[in-house]
């Protein structure tokens, strides 16, 4: 496929000396690293200058030189640079990225502005006509675009494909400019570029206000007669004199060792003749034509693709036909990937059924092919293609997962780890729920080690899939200190009936580093009102009071203990507030005792009766200012809440 310019130096008339930036060796491979630009915009320094390194992103997005001797030329240049930059940006960004949107906006503004300016001032009445040269675009004799790097250059891409003139008329619409960008972007970014080029794409577009003049212009450098058939892959610009010689089928005249002409009886026998019928011009109903037209639109493509595979599979199955799996395995992959990217799950399942039906002919091959329908890549594509409004995995996806063998759980875990959109994560999680029982231990390991939000999702899935083993999931999560995971642990615990194991889990959560989690745990503990928890919560408070604690937490402890066991709590609090032993009252102030008293005041605040008031008042008269304030606030609240004031 000889579509791009080779040996540009041999252009007739000579090529202006290239003024390029010095060659710089890239520092690494392609993945986002440094590249060398060996041909830069005009105006750079040739040879001997300091080396310049830039990332691939910088390389692709760096704007071409601003050229143009007049204001109009500069505006056209701006429009063309926007066009080129936008087309190149698809090499870096996903088409739906916000960055693309910005480039589109700029392109629209620059290009429409340029066309209007150029066609309203009387200079160019009908449109902007650009002459396409290998590295330049010329308008009205002036260079309005210049870029010599073949990989970056808009002019080069067009010239290579045979475009020699591009005219954008005054009445051009935004849709047409967008389509022009689309065509150029495809040519910039596609790797398997065999089907179409800019000229054929532009023709297909059927523009009303954009015209091109195109040639095919490759000739062999050596003009000696070549006995070989000219390699297909390029349009040879054969002139009249070159075509004068009839194409002989002299077998000696061609170099290929194995040359076979089309059989003389091609397409024969013809179908048996039928009696002649009358013919007449009859208008065809518009509805019939409409139906024909619909068949030729892209909407039919999924069904046609599956049908082609089905037909080729039938040939593979036919013992008289030489078609084998090697001939069609790539087709199956390509159709599969197309259906995946379009979210066409129903035809995808048909395709699977068709392929499966031939398993007997080559089980290993079929299994390899089928594996690609639910591997990580496929699963990701399916999940991404599901509309955001959908809350459940589509039945076709579940069908695939149930039917086809593979490490589906691993793939689902990977999808969940990678996808960021809430919709994709929701679906991913539900898929994990479905598959989890295949290897719960693996999921537990992921809960313990994956990134926090992923681990939280997995814990939720675990509890949903294996409710009887929820505590195992909580255990795996409890060792972590990220709020996401711990809150999820609390959520799943909330759904469980009280038991010693649940108690253990909750108490364990009281020791996390995240205060908010501890507070919510205390809330949940209080909500359970289980006296069994009293001693353990008390012990935890006593231990933690010596470390970091806040007033909020101490209060929560106080409240919780009273709820769990009022009588014992009241006795304990009384001892903390006003120890019976005089010695303790006077001299004992162990570290942490302040927080214990704080908790005690909060707890006693919930105990009705004058005795509680007296106790709190007693402490208020003796405590430090903060604790005293806490006592006074508690007393004030009690007064407010007391019936009859």
């Amino acid at each position: 496929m000889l579509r791009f310019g080779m040996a540009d130096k041999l252009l007739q008339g000579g090529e202006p000396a290239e003024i390029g930036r010095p060659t710089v060796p890239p520092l690494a491979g392609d993945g986002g690293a440094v590249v060398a630009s060996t041909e830069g915009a005009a105006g750079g320094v040739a040879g001997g200058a300091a080396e310049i390194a830039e990332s691939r992103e910088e390389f692709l997005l760096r704007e071409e030189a601003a050229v143009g001797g007049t204001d109009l030329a500069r505006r056209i240049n701006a429009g063309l640079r926007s066009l080129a930059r936008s087309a190149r940006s698809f090499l870096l960004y996903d088409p739906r990225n916000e960055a693309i949107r910005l480039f589109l906006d700029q392109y629209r503004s620059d290009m429409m502005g340029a066309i209007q300016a150029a066609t309203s001032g009387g200079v160019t009445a009908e449109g902007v006509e650009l002459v396409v040269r290998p590295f330049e675009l010329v308008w009205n004799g002036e260079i309005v675009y210049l870029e010599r790097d073949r990989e970056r250059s808009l002019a080069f891409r067009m010239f290579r494909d045979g475009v020699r003139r591009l005219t954008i008329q005054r009445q051009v619409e935004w849709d047409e400019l967008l389509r022009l960008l689309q065509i150029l972007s495809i040519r910039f970014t596609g790797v398997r570029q065999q089907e179409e080029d800019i000229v054929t794409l532009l023709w297909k577009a059927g523009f009303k206000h954009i015209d091109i003049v195109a040639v095919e212009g490759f000739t062999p450098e050596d003009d000696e007669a070549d006995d070989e058939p000219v390699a297909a892959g390029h349009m040879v610009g054969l002139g009249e004199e070159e075509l004068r010689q009839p194409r002989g089928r002299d077998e000696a005249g061609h170099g290929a060792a194995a040359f076979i002409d089309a059989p003389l009886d091609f397409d024969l026998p013809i179908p048996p003749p039928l009696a002649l019928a009358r013919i007449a011009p009859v208008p065809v109903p518009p509805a019939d034509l409409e139906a024909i037209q619909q068949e030729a639109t892209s909407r039919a493509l999924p069904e046609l693709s599956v049908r082609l595979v089905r037909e080729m599979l039938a040939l593979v199955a036919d013992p008289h036909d030489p078609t084998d799996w090697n001939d069609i395995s790539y087709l199956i992959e390509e159709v599969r990937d197309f259906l995946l990217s379009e979210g066409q799950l129903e035809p995808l399942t048909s395709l699977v059924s068709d392929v499966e039906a031939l398993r007997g002919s080559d089980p290993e091959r079929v299994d390899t092919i089928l594996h690609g329908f639910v591997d990580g890549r496929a699963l990701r594509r399916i999940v991404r293609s599901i509309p955001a409004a959908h809350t459940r995995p589509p039945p076709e996806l579940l069908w695939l997962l149930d039917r086809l063998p593979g490490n589906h759980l691993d793939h689902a875990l990977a999808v969940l780890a990678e996808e960021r959109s809430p919709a994709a994560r929701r679906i991913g999680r539900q898929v994990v729920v479905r598959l989890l029982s295949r290897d719960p231990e693996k999921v537990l390991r992921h809960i313990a080690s994956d990134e926090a939000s992923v681990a939280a999702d997995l814990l939720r899935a675990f509890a949903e899939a294996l409710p009887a083993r929820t505590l195992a999931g909580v255990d795996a999560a409890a060792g972590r200190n990220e709020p996401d995971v711990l809150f999820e642990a609390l959520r799943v615990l909330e759904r469980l009936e009280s038991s010693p194991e649940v108690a253990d889990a909750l108490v364990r959560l009281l020791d996390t580093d995240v205060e908010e989690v501890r507070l919510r745990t205390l809330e949940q503990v209080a909500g359970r009102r289980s006296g069994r928890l009293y001693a353990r919560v008390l012990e935890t408070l006593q231990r933690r009071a010596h470390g970091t604690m806040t007033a909020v937490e101490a209060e929560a402890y106080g409240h919780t203990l009273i709820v769990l066991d009022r009588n014992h709590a009241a006795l304990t609090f009384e001892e903390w507030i006003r120890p019976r032993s005089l010695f303790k009252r006077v001299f004992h102030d162990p570290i942490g005792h302040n927080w214990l008293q704080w908790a005690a005041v909060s707890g006693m605040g919930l105990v009705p009766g004058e005795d509680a008031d007296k106790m709190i008042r007693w402490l208020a008269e003796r405590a430090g200012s903060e604790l005293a304030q806490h006592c006074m606030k508690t007393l004030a609240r009690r007064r407010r809440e007391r019936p009859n004031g």
Partner: protein
Amino acid sequence: MAEPSSPAELASGELDSAQDRLAGALERARAGEDRELAAVVRDEGHQLVRLLFGLLRMTRVHAVDNEAFEKPLVELRATIEQLVGLLGVVHCFAVEDQVYVNDVRIRFQDRAEGGAELGGELRRLGIGGLSWHAVPEVEHLRLLVRGFAKPPVGAVSRQALQLQLASAGADNVELHGLFRFRVSGEEEKVEAQDSRLVARRATSVVDETWDSLIGNRVPNPLPLRRAVTEILHMGPGLDGLWQDPRGASAFGGHTLRVCRYALFLASGCGLSDEAIQDLGLAAMFHDVGYAAHEGAQPAHGKDPGHPGYPPPYERHAGAGARVLLRQRGFHEAKIRRALAALEHHRDFNDPRGKPSIFARILRIAEDFDNLVRRKGGRMTPAASLRAMAAGAGVRYDPVLLQVFVNVMGAWPPGSLMELADRRIVRSISTARSPETWSRPLCRVEVDDNGTRYLQDQPLLDLAQGGSVVREIVEH
């Protein structure tokens, strides 16, 4: 969703919609191409160039049967195998100091890796690039590399090396010469397009494509697509296009005619420009199944092998699809034309289901030409239409067939008629309107006093006068 209330909101909405449309179009156009594909091609391409350059360089100092060549040859084969698996056909071209693998530029950390020098090495034999259409054997690669050794061991030219490779059965590697852009005179060439030249070029490309496919190469649709675009641009009904181009093979002529009938039919149905172009290309490829070899045996050592034979009629359709599917990459046009090649001889009421729209169109175009051509039914064009009309609903889609009848007219192009005034005329136009359906534009071949015109045949518009008394059977 609330309606946009301000110009800014409106513009923003338009931009969102524009981005959505663009994204959808690009995603579909690049279906199957992960963003990683280009990176992988770059990496593997880098490896390919490095190995190839290294091997060619080694021929300057070592004999090719030296053990030192073995490992890099094996690695080179493995790399090509990777790339063929991804791309289908691998093109490696050196342009000045740059190297491209399938349009992806390969960059190098330092000059010692060979990027810049590969071109120089290839130019020793006047080679601008290489294409691999399938995974080569190590022996074939050795032979290729050996070609760069000094004569008498090495080859003396690109052509000689290509012959050596072909003789050894390495017909899936293609050596390209150095090319240049044609610049001078092209403007004039574009302006003065001659329909006959267009037709000859089209059949020439068909024949070249045939040659390529015979050589087990991957189909390259681009040249044929260009040819179709040229025909469409000029108008498929142009006078000069109706005569078989001089020097065209029977196969090439048939292919071109089927293409043009199909284009007419598609146009008459109101298909989009996109669909018409794709259909034209499908028509150009519809009989490539005959290029497939059955029973082919590659050459091996002293065994010259066997070129194989074209498939019989019953299998040529399937063979055509098989050949077309050598091309890698998902594309709507490829799917449609492979299906069309497969189904284009099926009846409309085939028990396997109604054939695809392209196949049904090609069936009509193909049968019409096969009924008319000399080696086929040898019927007159008008009689062919009437014979086909009898098959409406069974062999042929009745709607499409009626459109075809409407478009071709009572006297399709090529019909030879005798008029009431004894002039012999040949139709050169399809139906220009329902009113002139049976009164085409013609060229007078014999005038009313028996004078035969061999050239500069006068035009006669039957819409202006003249009536047909009989059709003349020529064969």
